[in-house]
Structure formats: structure tokens, C-alpha cells
């Protein structure tokens, strides 16, 4: 049988030679092709159908988040889903929130969908739901996929609008990954929308806001060249698209890339399976630090307190190491003299050792424990004392 296979290989020699020739041609010309074909043509192939359709539906207001010129996106005011409802301000609540004439201690919660609570649990079972009582009124502005820069922009907007006493900022290592990104498909996020967001850059230790024309860009992509030129200039992840154009858009080079990716993925899976002490450092640490500093300064100016709520990721629950993004976040919180709650420590102390079955959200029980810890610091007479880090 080997003889037949060898005979087949000999007969295929010319095909192999032709393939090598074609591969060489692809290497030589793939760069040239990017000058011939318009970028928008590549972008259409780069974005999957589902991503584009979901974005179209997102623009049509079919989801719980809607496009926003300043923040990139926000909770859709008045949205009523199966489990999630937002009030007219975009805060998660089953009833209309009345911010005027308050008598309670007002707490705003900011962060991503873990602060929001997600669509698996009701509003009462979120951190905000458990925190609310006769002395505390809460406004849950947790927004899916938000990163720290958007949380900062949202903080400025909401504090002006609602004059809170306390702002709880939920934060995990995930929230700093997109700080250097404008267009989400260029970053490996797993977000199933092609969203555009603002970002900050650090220039001589000052934060400068890069604000794209979000609504215009979302409407124009992938047909217009203008958003791509903007992303090319300001998005640090644009190189992923460049790589796609040059290395993945011709058949043989693309095949090699695909096989390489599969091998690496297999290798990573084996490595992670064997390693309990992997190190995942905090992404964009410098920017994150600058943003946290600015938040602190802003809170002093506007006379409210910020409590950072540090939230662990799934793997941080499972591994016993100090080499995680979480511990770096904790260092930043201490460095900037924040009042913070160590979510991992509190939950582990109460015997919670895993997240909900989806591996991302907290269980209602975990939310209750976190809310109980927060409650101690949400009374106006209390300052940064007992148990507060």
C-alpha cells in the first residue's frame, strides 16, 4: 500500500512544485494586492456576516444597548427584555427611578455586565438590588462590554446628572483590555457586535480623549474608507486587520496561518491544562493607572466618594496565585488611595469558590455577599474605616 501512496506522491510532484511557486507568488504579491484592492473590500471579508447583521440590528435598537455618540454605546432607556429592564435613564430597574427630592443615600453603580447582572438573574438579585434598602437608593448603570475609559466618561456624565454620594466602580482585569482599542472587531474580545468606542491616550502624563464620530462610523462601515483611516491612526489593534490583509487573504498563506493558529491553540490548551500558576498581567496598566487617578481627582472636585469593587475572573477564582491581573489592579487601587473592596477575598471568606455556570457572572448569593460588604461603607456617617482597605 505504501507503494501506491509513494506512486501517488511521485505523480503529484508537479502539483507540489506548482503550489510552492504559487506560495512564493502569494508572499511576493500579497502586499501589492493591498494597494490594488480597496480597504473596504478587505473589511467586508474581515467582518463576519453575523457581526454585521447584529450591528445592523443593534443600530435598529433591537438589543438592550444602543449606539451613543460619546460613550460608544449605552443601556437602551426604557428597554424591556425577558429579565432585563432599564428605566428612562438606562439604569437597571423594574420601576421608574425618581432622582429628584431624595431622602436617601444615593449610590451609583458603574461597570460592565457583571455589575449590570446579566439576563440570567432578576434586578433584585444583582449587587444593586441587594444594596438597595430604606437608607440607600441605587442606580445600576452597569453596561455590557464597558471598559475603564468608558466607565470614566460615564462617571463624569452620571455624577453631573444625579449628584450621588457614592459611586461604586466594578472593575476586573477585563476592563482594561480595550483601553487601546477603538473598533472592537480589531481586538480579540469575543463581543458579537462591531462597536466603535472612544479611547484615551497618554501624552506627557496627560489624558487626551480620542473621540471618533461613532454614529457616523457605525453607519458607514464597511462601505467608507474614512473610519478605517481614523482607526489606522488611533487604534493600537489596527495591525490585526493589516495582518489579515497581508497574511490571511490569499489561499495558501491563509491556510498556513490557519494551521499555525490551530497548532498554537492546541498548544495553549495543553499548557493551560497543565499549568495552575499562569501569569496574566494587567493590560494597558499605565493608561489604567492614569484613568484611576483622574477618577479620584474628579471625585474630590465634585464631592462624592468612589468605592472600587474589584471583581475576579473565573481563572482567578480557580488558581492560587498573586501573579494575576487582579492583584495588579489591587496594587493600583492601593497606590491611588482608593477605598476598595477585595471581591475575591470576601467571596472566598464566605466559601464561594466559583462563578455561575456560565463562568462569567456572579451567582445571586455572591452578589448578596458583595452587597453586604458594600452596605457597610454606604452609610453617610461612615468613612474609610473598619475593614475598608
Amino acid at each position, binding site marked *: *500500500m*505504501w507503494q*501506491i*501512496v509513494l*506512486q*501517488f506522491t511521485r*505523480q503529484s510532484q508537479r502539483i507540489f512544485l*506548482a503550489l510552492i511557486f*504559487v506560495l512564493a507568488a502569494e508572499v511576493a504579491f500579497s502586499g501589492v494586492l493591498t494597494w490594488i484592492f480597496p480597504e473596504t473590500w478587505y473589511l467586508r*471579508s474581515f467582518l*463576519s*456576516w*453575523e457581526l454585521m*447583521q*447584529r450591528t*445592523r*440590528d443593534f443600530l435598529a435598537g433591537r438589543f438592550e444597548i444602543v449606539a451613543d455618540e460619546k460613550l460608544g454605546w449605552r443601556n437602551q432607556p426604557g428597554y424591556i427584555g425577558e429579565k432585563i429592564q432599564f428605566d428612562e435613564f438606562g439604569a437597571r430597574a423594574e420601576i421608574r427611578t425618581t432622582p429628584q427630592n431624595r431622602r436617601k443615600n444615593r449610590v451609583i453603580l458603574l461597570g460592565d455586565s457583571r455589575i449590570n447582572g446579566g439576563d440570567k438573574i432578576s434586578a433584585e438579585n444583582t449587587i444593586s438590588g441587594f444594596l438597595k434598602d430604606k437608607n440607600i437608593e441605587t442606580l445600576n448603570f452597569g453596561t455590557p462590554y464597558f471598559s475603564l475609559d468608558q466607565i470614566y466618561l460615564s462617571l463624569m456624565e452620571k455624577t453631573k446628572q444625579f449628584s450621588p454620594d457614592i459611586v461604586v466602580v466594578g472593575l476586573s482585569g477585563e476592563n482594561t483590555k480595550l483601553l487601546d482599542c477603538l473598533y472592537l472587531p480589531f481586538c480579540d474580545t469575543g463581543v458579537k457586535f462591531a462597536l466603535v468606542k472612544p479611547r484615551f491616550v497618554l501624552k506627557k502624563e496627560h489624558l487626551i480623549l480620542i473621540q471618533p464620530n461613532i454614529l457616523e462610523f457605525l453607519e458607514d462601515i464597511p462601505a467608507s474608507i474614512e473610519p478605517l483611516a481614523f482607526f489606522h491612526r488611533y487604534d493600537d489593534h489596527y495591525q490585526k486587520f493589516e495582518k489579515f490583509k497581508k497574511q*490571511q*487573504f*490569499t*489561499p*495558501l498563506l*491563509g*491556510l498556513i496561518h*490557519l494551521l499555525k493558529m*490551530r497548532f498554537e*491553540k*492546541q498548544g495553549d490548551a495543553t499548557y493551560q491544562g497543565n499549568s495552575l500558576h499562569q501569569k496574566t498581567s494587567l493590560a494597558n496598566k499605565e493608561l489604567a493607572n492614569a484613568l484611576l487617578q483622574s477618577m479620584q481627582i474628579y471625585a474630590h472636585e465634585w464631592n462624592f466618594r468612589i468605592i472600587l469593587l474589584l471583581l475576579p475572573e473565573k481563572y482567578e477564582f480557580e488558581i492560587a496565585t498573586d501573579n494575576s491581573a487582579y492583584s495588579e489592579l489591587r496594587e493600583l487601587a492601593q497606590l491611588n488611595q482608593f477605598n476598595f473592596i477585595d471581591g475575591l477575598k470576601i467571596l472566598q471568606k464566605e466559601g464561594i469558590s466559583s462563578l455561575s455556570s456560565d463562568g462569567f457572572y456572579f451567582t445571586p448569593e455572591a452578589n448578596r455577599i458583595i452587597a453586604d460588604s458594600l452596605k457597610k461603607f454606604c452609610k453617610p456617617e461612615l468613612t474609610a474605616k473598619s475593614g475598608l482597605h
Partner: protein
Amino acid sequence: MNFTSFEFFIFLIIVYVLYLTVNHKLQNLLLLLASYLFYAWWDWRFLGVVLFSTIIDYFCALKIDQHDFRKHRRKYLFLSLSVNLLLLGFFKYFHFFIDNFILLFQKMGVQLQPSTLQIILPIGISFFTFQTMSYTIDVYRKKIKPTKNFIDYALFIAFFPKLIAGPIERANRFLPQIERQRELSVDKLKSGLLLIYWGLFKKLVIADNLGTMISYFSARNSEELTSALVWGTLYGYAIQLYADFSAYTDIARGTARLMGFELSHNFRNPVFSRNIQDFWQRWHISLTSWFTDYVFLPLATIKLKYRAIIPYAAIFFTFLLVGLWHGAGWNFLLWGGYNGAALAGYHFFKRKKNHQIKKKIARALPLGDLVAMAVTLNFVIIGLIFFRSASLARAIHCFSLILSNFSFGASEWDLLFKVAIYSAPLLIAEIFLAKNDNDISQFFRLPKLIRFGILYFMLFLLVVYHDGAHQFIYFQF
């Protein structure tokens, strides 16, 4: 281990290198062990189910052959069939029957506790149990002699390319291929590789991309659906289903061919079916021929008082079972009934054929064949509403939308355009294969430059536009 996975790619290379190195006897043992490993990769616990069914049928077949008395032979046939049907019934239909039983009692005012037993369906159970049943029935009918070599028999059941989703092979066709020395040729290798390549293209480019679209629109609320979306998802689903299932068969046939085996055709250009009978002779052939031989023919030849209606009733009943074979749900039963009623009706009118009317129709329709194909396809596609819908209410709503809510927006255009684009390569290939008696190796008779161009373009689409997010649809059956 999915055919489109990286693990399978590595698995196949290792198994193939070993296969080429060892002698015939060891080849069979190697393939058997590889097949069990392949199956255990999904869930090792269910390997016991495959082994149990294999051992029972191996011994039953030998016992049937040893006895001349019909009574004894029947006893062992009964044992074999009961074991396999019980396995199927327990793993596949337990919840369906229990839930409906409880519902029935509730309607009568008796409250029963619902079952809390969680039963996971062993993958491929409908395929391998049908194969072993056909073996013992054929031995009982003295169509074949049972094999005494357990490894050969076990390999006949578990041969990995066809284990999970067929084709459902018959012993008289496949066992001799296991028993004799297999031969390879350069042409076999070439056509085997081409079958795998074409199968991967159909699965990753056509079926999976369409699958993403169909799932996306199917998840919409009933109020958001329009007539065009329902038609678009129906056509899209039909193409996805065909591309997906035929892709599995092609990869299975291609893999088997690399080792010198020849698996049966499961499809013969169903797109060109001229009537419902023609369609069922072209679609999932290994299953329909199984039901014809082991269910329909015994039923149709029963001697009863109302002899005239027996064949039609047999067709209808057989198709109810075909529906149930696909899944434990009322939607599958209705789908089977829909096709069974159509086929029985077709045979009824065919029997009472009126040549004059036929001629008149043929004269009135110069494109008679095209019209017949379009009518047949649309009839089959509409029936898929039952097949695809998650609930009866949803199916009824989809039926109501076929001819209402004609609003047409960007999503509708996009879906219909994409369905047309993805069906184009499939249709071209169908025409090519139909012209060449479904022999894919005829592709190598095309001019070299055209061949290379086609394969290169397919690779481009595979690399850039593959989706790869979906399991093969027929794995769930």
C-alpha cells in the same frame, strides 16, 4: 472528534500511516481500535452501548444460523431486535413517551410527577443500531451467512468514518470489504482526497455560514418574522441540511476510500427530483432503503381484508417511523406524516394514471420537468417547517407567514441574496455530478488549469469565509 476538527486531522494521519504499515489482519484490528477511540472521544461512557449491541447481535446472528427450526431462529432474532429497540427506546424516546404519558393523564385529571431522569443521547445510536438490526434480519432471512470473526463484525458496526452519521451500510455489501484484502490505487487516493476536500468545503463554507444565518433569524420573535424571512430561512435551511449531511457522507466516503473501502452513496442529486417518490429515492438513500426493506415491504405484503389500502397505509406508517427515527418529537412525527401522506397520495394517483391527462399536462407545460422539479422541491422544503421548528405553535405560525406579512427590508434582501450565493456552488456541482453519474473522479478529466483554478478558489473561500461553528446536523439523530 468532529470531521472538521484539528484533532481528527491528526488522528487520521496517525491511523493512516499505521494502516499502511501493517498487514490485513492487523489493519482490521487497528481500524477497530481507532474507531472505538474515535467514538470514546465524544463520550467514553457510551462505548459500552456500542459494544453491548455489537456483542449481542454477533452471538444472535451465529445462533440464528446454527438453528434450522424457525421457532429457534425467531427467538434469537427477537432477542436481537428487542435489545436494539430497547436501547433506542430508552436513550432516544424515553422522555418523549414519558412526557406525553404524563400530559395524557393530566388531561384526564390525574397528576403525575414528571421524570427527573437525565438521559443523554449516545451519538450515532440511530445509525449503528439500524446497521446491527439489518445484519441479524438478513441472517434470519438467509440472505447472508454470519461472520465468525468478531473483529470483522465489530468493525462492520463501528468503522469510524460511518459510525456517527452513516451511511447505514448493509452486511452483504460491507463485510466482504472487511474480510478481503483491500486494494489501493492512485485514482482511489485522488478521488478520496477530492471527496474529503469537497465535503469540507460544503460543510465549512456553505452549511456553516448558512447555519449561522438561519439560527440568527430563527431566534427572532414570531412577531418580527416576515414572509420573505420565513421563505429565506426555509430555502437556506434546506440547502444547509443538504450541504451538511452530504458533506459528512462525502468526508466519510473519501476517508474510507483512502483505505480501500467503498461506502454507499447516500444522495443522488435530490435537487433534480421530479416527484416525491423520486425525491425519496435520492435523499438519504441508505435510510430509505433500510425502511423499505425492513418495514415497508413486510407491511405491504400483509394479507388482510382491505387489501387495496394496505400499500398506502404501509407507506404512511413507514414514513411516520422515518419521522420518529429523526427525533423524539411531534414535529418529526408530523414531518413524517406529511411526507408519508404525499407519497401515498402520489402512488394512489399514479396507479390511476390517465395517459391523456398526462399528455395534456406535458403539452401545456413545455418546461414540464423544470416545473415538476420546482413543485417537488418546494413541497419538500415547506415540509421542513415541521422538521426545523422548535414547537408546534412556532410551526403553525411559520405556515401562516408563508403567504402573509410581505414587508421587505434590508435583512430580507440580505438573507435571500446570501442563500442564492451559497446555493450556487452546490447547484453547479450537482449539475456536474448528475451529468457524470455521480462519479466525482470525472473532475480529473477537466483541463488542468481549470481544475487548479477551481481548487485554488475553493481554498480561498475555505480559508477566508469558513465558519466552522456548527456540529453536523445529523449527529443529533
